[in-house]
């Protein structure tokens, strides 16, 4: 098990390491002069631009830039943003709790709603219930989540006036979390259904039935507990998608997380901030997937007892 965790952690480190290479290359792929583009404010002279280039190390060969960047990253220094010249890491950390609150609450909604829907659709496979649940799920999957967000906003904030429209605080979290949670829940419902159908078709479920166990016992003890393994293992990816989805949703609801920061950075072509964001995002996703991998390893004795 320890070996498993070490392996997963190592893989996560590789991911993060490749991310550092990718973000270093990013700035070199920009057509034109990134410094010009970034520092286009007003009244910068050629000499100043050259000075900035030097300060950012852009006058160095790429490999050296990479090692300079890596060295700084290892010291927790992701550089300074162009707009406002704040330390990128500070900015990201300042904004991350909001994103985390959004994604975690959305994940909870998604798992509760989607998992339940998928489980019962699989259980009642082929019935009207299944059809209804899956119709709901595919409509949910097909709906652009920013549109769902707008509809919820229109309904709950504009028309009914029940919930606030933006800003921070838990009441403001409800709508964005609901939007993101329902959209992801639809995906999870579909995944859960097919995972549970696979489980229901397994021999051991038949064995449990053949033992004459009550249906609920078969369902929860044998099927659901086995089904949790594949379901939890796919949550890693779902979390990554949630983080991605949060970028858009944060913009719809003016939820002040890293996603909104990212979009502002792209608009402003604030490359240090974009680089930092990608690296940060990759790190979070990699670490979360380690956590989720370890969780499902705990659920699955085949991994827990290392075979």
């Amino acid at each position, binding site marked *: 098990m320890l070996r498993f965790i070490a392996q997963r952690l190592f893989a996560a480190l590789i991911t993060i390491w490749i991310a550092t290479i990718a973000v270093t290359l990013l700035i070199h792929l920009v057509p034109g002069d990134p410094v010009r583009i970034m520092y286009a404010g007003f009244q910068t002279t050629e000499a100043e631009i050259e000075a900035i280039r030097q300060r950012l190390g852009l006058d160095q060969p790429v490999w050296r830039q990479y090692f300079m960047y890596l060295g700084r990253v290892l010291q927790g220094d992701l550089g300074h943003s162009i707009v406002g010249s704040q330390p990128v890491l500070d900015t990201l950390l300042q904004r991350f709790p909001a994103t985390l609150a959004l994604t975690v609450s959305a994940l909870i909604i998604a798992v509760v709603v989607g998992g339940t829907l998928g489980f019962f659709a699989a259980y009642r496979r082929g019935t009207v219930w299944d059809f209804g649940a899956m119709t709901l799920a595919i409509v949910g999957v097909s709906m652009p989540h920013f549109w769902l967000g707008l509809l919820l906003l229109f309904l709950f904030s504009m028309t009914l006036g029940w919930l606030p429209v933006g800003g921070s605080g838990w009441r403001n979290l409800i709508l964005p979390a609901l939007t993101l949670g329902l959209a992801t829940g639809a995906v999870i419902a579909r995944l859960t259904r097919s995972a549970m159908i696979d489980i229901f078709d397994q021999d051991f479920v038949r064995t449990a039935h*053949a033992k004459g166990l*009550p249906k609920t016992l078969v369902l929860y003890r044998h099927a659901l507990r086995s089904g949790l393994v594949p379901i939890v293992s796919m949550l890693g990816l779902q979390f990554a998608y949630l983080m991605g989805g949060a970028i858009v949703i944060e913009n719809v609801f003016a939820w002040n997380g890293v996603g909104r920061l990212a979009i502002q950075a792209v608009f402003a072509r604030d490359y240090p901030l974009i680089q930092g964001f990608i690296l940060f995002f990759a790190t979070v996703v990699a670490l979360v997937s380690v956590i989720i991998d370890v969780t499902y390893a705990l659920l699955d004795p085949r991994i827990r007892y290392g075979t």
Partner: protein
Amino acid sequence: MSGPLLKVRDLSVAFGPVQAVDGLSYHLHAGETLAIVGESGSGKSVSSMALLGLLPQRSARITQGEAIFEGQNLLRMSEREQRRIRGNRIAMIFQEPMTSLTPVLRIGQQLTEALTEHRGLSQRAARDKALEMLRLVDLSDPPRRMLQFPHELSGGMRQRVMIAMAMALEPDILIADEPTTALDVTVQAEILDLMRDVQARFGTAILLITHDMGVVAEMADRVVVMHRGKKVEEGPVKTIFNNPRADYTASLLAAVPRLGARSAEDGPRPIIAQPAQPGEVVLHAEGMCKQFAGRGSLFGRSSGTVAMKDVGFSVRAGETLALVGESGSGKSTSGRAVLRLLEIDSGRIALEGEDMRALSSRSLRKARRAMQMVFQDPFAALNPRISIGRLIAEPMLIHGIAQGSELDDRVAALLRRVGLEPDHMKRFAHEFSGGQRQRICIARALSVGPKLIVADEPTSALDVSVQAQVLELMLELQQTMGLAYLFISHDMAVVEEMAHRVAVMRQGRIVEMGPRRNVLDAPRHPYTGALLAAVPKPDPAALRQKLPRLNLKEIPMGSLVEVAPNHWVAQ
């Protein structure tokens, strides 16, 4: 109470428009073993699943019939009543021990839950009972087993657990659905022994579902033979074997290879008048070693598993060398290594004197003309998206043997050669039956005129009647064309039919190799002996002894020594 324990009358089950079971009737008496035997698709499993209400609810439909158990119709019971019977009065064990236990639950819990459910036993009492059952099925260290998960047990151990689980409630009927099909032959023998023991102890009636006439002969008191959903014959086991009334039963029995049937002969049965005799050495392999890497990680490799250690043999033209062994013995690895479908770590492979391992990948492609392979699963061995004609033509195209209409002619000729119609050329693999597909595979292998054919369990996925036909085709081809066969199989009876010489493999090594008569009739290695003793004999008259327990530590696994001319045994 006298009279049958279970009376099934006129049972019919339909899957959509397909009638899977059609008017099946039989009865089962207390304490007896009734075997329901049939080939795939005969409806034997479906009929027994129907009894316990375990059929897939949406697709299957019981159209008529009744199954009377203790005066109640099992087929018309409520879910609740059914549950009281299931596991309690009628228990069931399944074919796949690897997947029949819930992977995330401990053995202990899976053993005790039915006891607490049906008997209302306390956890403690259930645990005691479970431990007792584990002891009964001869599992070592029961308290530890209780805490283990299924994946920590071997297939045979799991099937023992399944039996313990099924018998814990001392049911009146045990339905065993192909209980040993997935097991190696030595393990099969142990499990069959165990089932007989258990039956004797509890007086349980067993409904045994199987396709294996050997198992039937060993276990059954009475037999029901099924074919295409219908019962074709029913009777005491001896009658069925000795005086089958239905043609189908007779042909089924005729197709079953019997170990020892050809013990008097030197070579396989001649199919043609002047069969080719073994000639020059076509393939010579020596010192082949292969170690599969452990799970690769970036930290390094965990020590791998040895698949092949110092394996060597030669095959002559017109000769069949059979590689036999249980799963994991390295016999398939050896076959694939010879064809260079996998790279070996060390050793020498020579085809007609040419060192295969020294060839560049380009010349290897050319050299492959001389050797072809026939695979176990004919369903997977044909590319599903290429027509049969093109598949058979492909090797000829690659090797530049023929083109255009000549190619078509050759394909047509090959199809005829293996007993198929030339106008099958345009069809795709899924339009053929298993036996036909294997013929197509053989035609394809033959197309380039190879010297050597490696046949990896070519009939184990086929029903016995089809198996007999395919084996005959292979024999006929060898005898007319002087082909060398490296014939890989786990089935000793099939090996006896096909082989000139036999090599027995265990744990990646050859433990005994020699002429078929020597090895099969007078084995010199204890493992060969055990293997042979474990094979169920399709003869109800044969008396079966308890298997000798092999002391695995004392099996000699050293290098081969020639104990008789051409007969080598591991020391």
